[in-house]
């Protein structure tokens, strides 16, 4: 009795800890006042409306979307063949390759950002958007490789041989029998990569240039200049977008199996 009560209390505290900040932000989004404060003063939709009016939010949102979609796509184009090779062939230094590919997860973003800026962007005068795209691709790659590898490990390799014996080429077998069976993993990797890229702060902070900013960086800057609740409103909208994506993913592919 006592132990089950203790358990309930601990669970409630844990949930409050996880969800609490989220409640504060949502409440603040609908504030009637004009500073970011909790508890909110009155109720209004003005800050939610304002989010759509701020020009920089619209352009940085577009850039973040563009990066998240294309960097994740690029990471999958590189990551799927890499995962396949790692799963199916005995590659010299295969484990090393795996570690190197995963390194952007392990190395702090701030170091990656600084390194990319100092040794890639500055010396080669790389365009800001291209630099962001390359950096985000590298950051998403580990997730792509990890999730796709897990799917491949669960897929028997003899179905490819069966396809070949039925007349398919090796490459054809990959597209006909491997890809359809790791579709769920690829979609899960895409979602994970998308969210990772979209929420990326430290690396983007180093690489963003004047007038070219991803949404999280733009929000940081906005808060330094204007302390109104529109950032809270924007955060709420983004949170709901993420929840929506994960909900749909769970519903259709059983997202949690892959992550």
């Amino acid at each position, binding site marked *: 009795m006592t132990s089950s009560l203790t358990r309930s209390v601990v669970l409630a505290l844990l949930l409050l800890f996880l969800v609490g900040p989220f409640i504060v932000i949502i409440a603040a989004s609908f504030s009637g006042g004009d500073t970011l404060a909790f508890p909110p003063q009155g109720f209004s939709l003005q800050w939610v409306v304002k989010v759509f009016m701020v020009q920089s939010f619209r352009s940085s949102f577009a850039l973040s979307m563009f990066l998240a979609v294309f960097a994740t796509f690029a990471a999958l184009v590189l990551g799927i063949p890499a995962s396949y090779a790692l799963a199916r062939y005995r590659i010299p230094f295969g484990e090393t390759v795996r570690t190197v590919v995963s390194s952007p997860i392990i190395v702090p973003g701030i170091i990656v950002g600084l390194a990319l800026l100092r040794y890639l962007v500055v010396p080669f005068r790389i365009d800001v958007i291209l630099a962001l795209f390359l950096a985000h691709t590298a950051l998403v790659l580990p997730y792509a490789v990890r999730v796709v590898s897990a799917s491949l490990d669960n897929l*028997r390799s003899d179905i490819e041989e*069966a396809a070949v*014996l*039925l007349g398919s080429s090796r490459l*054809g077998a990959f597209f006909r029998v491997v890809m359809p069976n790791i579709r769920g993993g690829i979609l899960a990797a895409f979602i994970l990569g998308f969210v990772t890229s979209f929420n990326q702060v430290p690396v983007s902070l180093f690489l963003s240039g004047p007038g070219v900013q991803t949404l999280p960086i733009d929000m940081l800057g906005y808060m330094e200049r204007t302390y109104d609740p529109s950032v809270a409103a924007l955060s709420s909208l983004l949170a709901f977008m993420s929840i929506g994506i994960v909900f749909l993913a769970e519903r259709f592919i059983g997202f949690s199996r892959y992550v």
Partner: protein
Amino acid sequence: MSDPAYLSLEQLTLAYGDTVAVDRLDLSIAQGELIALLGPSGCGKTTTMRAIAGLLSPSSGRIRLDGRDITRVGANKRAVGLVFQSYALFPHLTVFENVAFGLRLKGLRGQDLESRVRSGLESVGLSSFSGRKPAELSGGQQQRVALARSMVMEPKVLLLDEPLSNLDARLRLEMRTELQRVQKETGVTMIFVTHDQGEALALADRIVVMLNGGVEQIGTPEEIYNQPGSRFVADFVGFENIFRLDDGKLITEAGPIAIEGTPPDGATGLAWRPAMVELDRGPFEGSVRGVSFAGGTREYLLDTPLGPIKAEADAGLPVHDLGARLRFALPVERAAPLARFG
């Protein structure tokens, strides 16, 4: 059985690094034969099968099929079918689409495709399952789909990897009958790989016993069972009492022992199944170390001056207790003479 060498392997050698899995293997198979490659794991039988399929490239030697050298022909162009031990059905496709897979690649569409797949499924008794996914089928049904998927391609040779090992006893008999029927109806040349001598004896026209990457003996099931050519084959098919023969004497733990009767010329060893050992009479004596009841018979393990001997007696006879002393004979005329004692 028109052409004596429909499929032939000539000096086939496969090596991985320093390990030679198959060593200068020669084998010649007639059209329509049902061949078993029999041997313990690591004997090279699976490697040989995969080389015939084209999934492994030989280091040297040649493979000829139907008058054509296919050693360097890709696995997808050999007209060789393979039923995998795990069946290897495509999990994302229905039973129908699994069977249609190869036919689609051949360019069949519409009515042609439909009727070929239907008759393929019909021949294995799975017409009503065409809309199911492999995961919704039992192991035996999956195997029949795999069989149909290979057979609709009308392969010149059908390879089967341990076709009965994943099935329970009842299904095993059913599948064995099924394979024999398919073989009879289509006349396809079949080669199956197995480590189970019972499967090989029951199913094959000819058995190729393999050991250490080479052929140990080739023969009909009767020949392999009754006239094993070597100590290894004798042991593999259930001769439990095997002795080297030197100068007409059995070489035993207690030194050479003379036996009654004359062994055939050229025999380097003699082997007796437990049932061939005569009990309760004869020149030797041993004490009972173990008895086990095996239905119609009782098996005795005897400690004897020759070493341990396994004998068999009708279960209707009174049982001998542990420690009892029994006389026994090893009749030379019943023994299988071994040409090689390797």
